[in-house]
């Protein structure tokens, strides 16, 4: 690890238009750099990252025969790859580049002190030059990319991404925890009621309800897509399955999936429902949020796709040691299979798309809004199920306490959203609109219903959404009152609810009586998504959703290469956005895999085998699982899998024998930097 004694360093200084040059005197820095020992040339350019700047860079490198390059410009996060690719074209090794950040860490932060900023830029360039002399060339590793993709989550985003990839010819494994596809969107199903012309209504009211803002039926929209996915030869659907383990790296992830038993043969079941008729066990249907009853052998809801029954292991008499074979006797096709068992499925995939979606927030039991304490306080998801023509109440909204049709309904916004007591206080983005949609739907069936919406702010952004808000107030006569309700009091006899709130625009306390209160609950990350994120070592944002790699430029990539995120797993969003993001994620995965072979950046660590004492500390400490033990003649030694290593340096710091070195952060390199930084002028 000796430094290059005869290093010829070329220095490029980027003015970045006025971004750097208006503060830092770039010509001054250039003159200073050209006198540093070992520097063969030093050049200024207006925009180094422009095609002209890059071609000038190549020419100068070729002309001078420089052996390593220093670029004083913006942060490496922006242009590092472009610059490395560019110097590689001249025949130089791509690792022979050192970036001195004179924009974010100099001109931007010292905008008031141009003279001192220039001095700092000189120093940064000097440090860079000193380090450039110690750089080591390294070759990246070729990684073969498996032409298969794992999509986790069978909601609208996951299904869309899977379908697009399958159409492109990739083999897709679609893992879904529930016994059916479609996720939350498929449970919002108000199509059947609205597929007729509503007489005497303005033309604008003549649409179907389901998802906003166009109000077309969500079932009609998602069903054809689900059918396409179920029939697609390239898609392997794993229902009732959970990802248990993921190891590996971009292009080669090894995945363990646990497939739970359905106890019904998927190939034989035709979904006729004869089995459910005879099944003696009755339970509350969790897929209808307890609004309806189901049997031990059941279909989650009527339009569930694929139309296959499933047996509840905990409820079934036969599976709990009792004598019963009612369903088996009733089935013409002998589909129930009590011998079904858990399976572990091993997959090898090149890329992973996370589409784990959201869960509706469960308001605190016996919390101040009285959810699950008062019968007539329900959440929006229960209302969605009631509005489903094929749902528990046949498309009619009723009071759970007495099954009567409510005359006065209150919607309470921001339950769980914008609440810093229970989360990071994020806005769930879609609740304002789903409330409008459902209020309109109720008004369509029972126009005499009084609806009041308690809100803090209405966020009706997006194409056509403000107009949708107008229609809700103007055409449907829904009242909006600004104020977060303080409490709900139940009238013990009538089970009516008194909502106490400040009408903040009037400065008055109101106490108004309602037959039904609907809580517009927030969207929270679905159960298990945190475990999945830690399994894949993904960053999550403070709200608990998965953090994208860059909020603007890399919206579907994650902190892990080869792992993409789409839909509500990344944050609350509506269906069109989920679809757009799913397609973007599918495209990114396809672009990655279509290269067939990828080069891993050579930022990795390496082990001096002679020094290694085989203690294995690096194995425990590595966040990427890169070090592996190997048996050699001189005993157990460690080896770093280059394709896995991300060059974080944790193992380097922990190695008791000082046997591990990070290729771009050797002691030599760091000390040369420190030396230059501390050197007196």
């Amino acid at each position, binding site marked *: 690890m000796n430094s290059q004694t005869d290093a010829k360093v070329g220095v490029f200084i980027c003015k970045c238009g006025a971004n750097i040059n208006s503060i830092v005197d770039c010509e001054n820095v250039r003159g200073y750099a050209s006198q540093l020992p070992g520097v063969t040339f030093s050049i200024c350019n207006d925009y180094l990252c422009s095609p002209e700047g890059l071609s000038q860079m190549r020419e100068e490198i070729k002309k001078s025969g420089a052996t390593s390059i220093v670029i004083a410009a913006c942060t490496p996060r922006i242009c590092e790859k472009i610059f490395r690719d560019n110097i590689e074209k001249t025949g130089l090794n791509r690792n022979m580049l050192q970036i001195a950040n004179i924009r974010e860490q100099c001109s931007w932060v010292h905008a008031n002190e141009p003279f001192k900023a220039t001095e700092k830029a000189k120093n940064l360039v000097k440090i860079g030059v000193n380090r450039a002399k110690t750089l080591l060339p390294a070759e990246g590793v070729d990684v073969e990319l498996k032409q298969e993709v794992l999509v986790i989550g069978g909601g609208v985003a996951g299904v869309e991404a899977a379908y697009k990839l399958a159409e492109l010819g990739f083999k897709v494994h679609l893992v879904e925890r529930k016994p059916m596809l479609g996720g939350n969107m498929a449970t919002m199903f108000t199509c059947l009621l609205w597929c007729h012309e509503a007489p005497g209504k303005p033309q604008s009211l003549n649409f179907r309800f389901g998802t906003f803002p166009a109000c077309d039926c969500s079932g009609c929209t998602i069903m054809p897509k689900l059918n396409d996915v179920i029939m697609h030869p390239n898609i392997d659907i794993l229902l009732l399955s959970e990802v248990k383990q993921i190891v590996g790296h971009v292009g080669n992830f090894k995945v363990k999936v646990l497939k739970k038993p359905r106890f019904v043969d998927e190939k034989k079941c035709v979904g006729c429902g004869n089995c459910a008729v005879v099944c003696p066990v009755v339970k509350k249907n969790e897929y209808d949020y307890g609004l309806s009853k189901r049997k031990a052998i059941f279909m989650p809801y009527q339009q569930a796709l694929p139309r296959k029954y499933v047996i509840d292991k905990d409820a079934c008499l036969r599976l709990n040691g009792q004598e019963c074979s009612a369903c088996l006797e009733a089935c013409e096709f002998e589909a129930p299979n009590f011998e079904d068992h858990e399976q572990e499925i091993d997959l090898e995939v090149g890329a992973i798309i996370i589409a784990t979606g959201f869960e509706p927030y469960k308001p605190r039991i016996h919390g*101040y809004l009285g959810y699950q304490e008062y019968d007539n306080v329900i959440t929006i998801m229960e209302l969605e199920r009631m509005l489903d023509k094929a749902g528990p109440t046949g498309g009619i909204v009723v009071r759970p306490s007495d099954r009567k049709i409510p005359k006065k309904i209150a919607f309470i916004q*921001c339950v769980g959203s*914008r*609440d*810093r*007591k229970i989360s990071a*206080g994020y806005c769930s983005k879609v609740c304002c609109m789903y409330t409008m949609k459902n209020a309109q739907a109720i008004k369509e069936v029972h126009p005499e219903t009084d609806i009041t919406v308690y809100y*803090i*702010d209405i966020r009706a952004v997006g194409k056509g959404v403000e107009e949708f808000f107008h229609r809700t107030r103007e055409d449907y006569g829904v009242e909006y009152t*600004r*104020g*977060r*309700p*303080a*409490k709900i009091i139940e009238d013990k006899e009538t089970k009516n609810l008194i909502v*106490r*709130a*400040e*009408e*903040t625009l009037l*400065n008055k*306390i109101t106490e108004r009586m309602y037959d039904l209160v609907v809580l517009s609950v927030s969207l929270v990350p679905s159960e298990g998504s945190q475990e999945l994120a830690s399994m894949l070592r993904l960053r999550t944002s403070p709200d608990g959703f998965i953090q994208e790699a860059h909020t603007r430029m890399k919206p579907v990539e994650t902190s892990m290469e080869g792992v993409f995120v789409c839909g509500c797993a990344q944050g609350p969003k509506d269906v069109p956005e989920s679809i757009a993001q799913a397609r973007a994620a599918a495209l990114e995965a396809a672009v990655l895999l279509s290269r067939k072979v990828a080069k891993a950046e050579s930022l990795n660590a390496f082990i001096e085998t002679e020094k290694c004492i085989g203690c294995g500390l690096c194995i425990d400490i590595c966040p990427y699982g890169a070090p592996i033990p190997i048996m050699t003649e001189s005993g157990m030694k460690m080896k770093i899998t280059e394709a896995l290593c991300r060059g974080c340096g944790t193992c380097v710091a922990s190695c008791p024998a000082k046997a591990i070195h990070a290729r771009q952060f050797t002691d030599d390199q760091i000390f040369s930097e420190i030396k230059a930084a501390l050197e007196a002028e």
Partner: protein
Amino acid sequence: MDISHARKEFIISEKERLLEEIPIVDEECNRDFIRAIIEMGGGDVQVCLQCGNCTGVCPVSLKTENKVRNIIKMCQMGLKERVLSTPWVCATCHRCYEHCPAGMNPAELIIALRHIVVRELGPPPFVVSISNNVANLGQAIEISDKILDLRKKIGLNEKPFDERYRSKAIMDIKTIMKATGYDKLIGIDLGD
């Protein structure tokens, strides 16, 4: 509500009674006030979403014109003069704090405002008299002759406390008041 009475009054009155409000202008808005509140322990009023939940749960909101949400809004705008002239009716029950979705503590804000008022405008008379009672008698309310008579009548000891312990406690209270500078702040004479 019966509106006929109001209507009648309006018709028979000679002219409409109109308010004489003036707009709030820049001179009145002093955003440094937000920092002053933070320094007094009132927290950052800028986190407030103005949702009105605090007013909804406030036990005294129906008794005040300036409800707790309005006070926070005035603080956000820096309307120092207006805020400091609002009445002191907060019961500091902290229900607002329990409910606030923004994690603010409006009760602590009111306490901070009281600190600011006392320092800048001096204590209101009732605070001075109560503080004097605490310093000299060991309790906020003076026991009147009526109460002493009543005690005697129903067969209680004439004095509700043991004089030996009481004088010790009063000494302690005075020591605390001196140590914290409370006596000077409120303007009570503790003697020596």
